[in-house]
C-alpha cells in the first residue's frame, strides 16, 4: 500500500471536470484507490465519492493506492494534480 499527501493547487478545486479526469485515470488501474480528506475516506474510482469531497483550492488530501500497479497509479495521479488538470 502507498499513501501520499497532496495539496490542491488548481484555483477551482476538484470540480466536475478534474474529478472526471481523476476518476477516468484511476479506473485504468487495477489497484484499489482511496482518497482521504480530514476524516472522510472515499473510493477514488467513484465520481460521486470524489465530488462529495468538495475539495477546494488549498485542500490537503491523502491518496491511497493498494494493489499490483499501485506505484504507477500514485505516480500518474500525482502528475495529474501537479499539472493542475491541464487548467
Amino acid at each position, binding site marked *: 500500500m502507498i499513501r501520499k499527501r497532496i495539496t490542491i493547487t488548481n484555483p*477551482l*478545486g476538484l*470540480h*466536475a*471536470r478534474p*474529478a*472526471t479526469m481523476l*476518476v*477516468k485515470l484511476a*479506473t485504468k488501474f487495477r489497484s484499489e484507490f482511496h482518497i482521504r480528506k480530514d476524516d472522510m475516506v472515499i*473510493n477514488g*474510482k*467513484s*465520481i*460521486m*465519492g470524489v*465530488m*462529495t469531497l*468538495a475539495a*477546494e483550492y488549498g485542500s490537503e488530501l491523502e491518496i491511497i493506492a493498494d494493489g499490483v500497479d499501485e506505484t504507477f497509479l500514485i505516480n500518474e495521479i500525482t502528475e495529474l494534480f501537479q499539472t493542475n488538470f491541464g487548467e
Partner: protein
Amino acid sequence: MQVYSGLATSHGIAIGISRKILREPLEIKQTSITPDEITRELQRFEAGVESIILELDELIKLYSHSRDNRDILTTHKMILMDPEFLIRVRTKITKELFTTEHAIQQHFAEVVELFQKMDNEYFAQRSADYKDVSDRLLSHLLNKSSDSLDSIEAGTIIISDTISPSLLSRLIQQNIGGLCLERGTRNSHSSIIARSMNVPMIINVPQVSTEFADGQMMILDGNTGTVILHPDEATLQEYQKKLTQQQHRRDKLQEMLYESAVTSDGHPVILRSNIEIPEEMTAVLDANSDGIGLFRTEFLFMGSNHLPSEQEQYNMYRSIAEQAAPHSVTIRTIDVGGDKLSALLNLDRESNPNLGCRGIRLSFAKEEVFRVQIRAVLRANITGSIKLMFPMISGIGEFRKVKDIIVQCGAELDDRGEPWRMPDLGVMIEVPSAALTADVLAKEVAFMSIGTNDLVQYTLAVDRDNDMVEAYYQTAHPAVLRLIEHTAQQAAAHNIPVAVCGEMAGDPRYLPLLLGLGVTELSVSPSRILTLKQQIRAISYHHWKLVAKEVLSLATARDVEERITKEGSYDSLR
C-alpha cells in the same frame, strides 16, 4: 424574429404553429418487487444504464467541437459508470426488494441531499448533474407515453425536450408538420422514424424549454438545422416558396408510386427498403417498395432492457413478414460489435472492435443468443417469404458453419413439434476477402448483398468514425468498384441476385454506376424509394454498362467522380 440552430436529423421544411408537449412528471407507480423478480430487475437496471451510456457516447461524438458540452456529458457518463452507484442500486434491489426505478430514485435523492448540505456553492450545484442523469435513466425505464394529444392539428410543429418513438408514430399519424427538440440523437429510434416518414426534425435546440411556447409561428428548415421563431414577412414568403417546391417535388414523386422500376431501355431493377424498427413498416408500405431488403435486427437487442425471447422475436418477424406480403423480407442476424452489447452479453472490451468480435463472429461466440434468433426466424417463415442473411462473413467457412447451426435449430424445433420452414440463406459482402471469393460463395448461397459502408472501410483500411482519416474514405475508389463488379459478375454466373444495401445504393451519384456494374437489386431507406425509381426510369442501362467498364480502369476515386459527374444524370435529383 428569432433564429436558432440545431442539428437536423430529418430533412425537409415545415411551417406551422407550435405546440409544446410538456415533460410528464416521472411517476413511479410500483416501488417493490418479490424475491423471484430480483434477477429480472437487475437485468433491467444494467440494460437501462447501458442504453443511456450509449446515448451519451453518441452525444459526446456529436459535440466533438464543443468542449463544455462534451465535458458535462462525460461527467454524466462517469456518474453512470460509478462503481458505488452500481453497487448501491443493486443492493437496494436485492436486499430491500425495490423496483429498479425506486432504487434509482432513492439513490439519487440521497446523493442530491448530500450535495445540498455542502457549504461550497459550486459543489452544491453539482446536484443538478445527478438530477439530470437520474431523470434520463428514469424516463428511459418508465418508457413514458402521453395522452390528451388528440386535439393536435395537421401541420403543427411539435416542440418538446425529447420524444419517444411510440409518441412520435402517433403524432405522425396526425400529420404533424415537424419537430423541434431540446435533446436527441441522430440515430435514435425517433430520428429513424422521422427520416423514414419524411417529417422534418431538428434536435439539440437548448432554448426549447425556456424560450419556446405554445401557439407561436415557426419555421423548421431541416436542410440546414435552422429554427425560426416569429418569422418576418420576407422570411415567411421565402420559406412558403421553398415549401411549395418541396410539395411539388413530393407530388411528382407520388406519380412514381405505381410505376415500375425499369430503366429507359427496359432493364428491370428491384427496389427494396431497409428498416431498423417495426414502426417503419408504414413508410415501407407508403413507398410501395418490393418488400424489405434489409431488416437490421440489432435494434431489437439494443433498445431493449433484456435479451428478446424467441417468442418476442417470432411475433415481430411474423408481423413484418405478413405486412410486407406478397413481397419478401430479408432479415439480417444481429450485426453489432461486442462493444455495443457488453452489458447484455457479458463481454470484455476489445482494443479494436471493428476488426474484432462483431457480426457473425459475435453470434458464434454467443451461440445460444444466435440460436434463439435463428429458431424465431425459422418459425416465422412458415409463409416462406423470409430470407436470412449473415453479416461480417469473411469466407465460405463461416457460411457452412451457420448452415450447420441452422439445421440443428430446425431439428430442435422438430423435437418441440413446432412448424418451421427453411428460408433462403444469403451473405453480406462487406469484407474484401468475401468479395474476392464471391465465386466460391455464389455456388452455395441463395443471394448476396453488398454492404458498401463496411466494404469501403475494410478495403481502404479507413475507420468511418475517425475524422483524421475522413479524406481516405472514398466510396468511388476503383478498388471498391472492382470488388463490387467481381461480386456482381460471380452472382450473375451462378444465377443468383446481388443487392447493394449500403449508403451507396441510396446516393443518386452512384446508383447508375451500380446498375452498370451488374447489381440487380437496391435496398434503401423507404424515404428514398420513389426518388431512386424516378432516376432509374430516366437512365439507360446499356449506356451505364459502358460507363462502368470505362470507370473500372480509372486510377483514382477522383477520376471516377469526374467521369460520372460528366454524365450529369443526377444533377436534378440531389
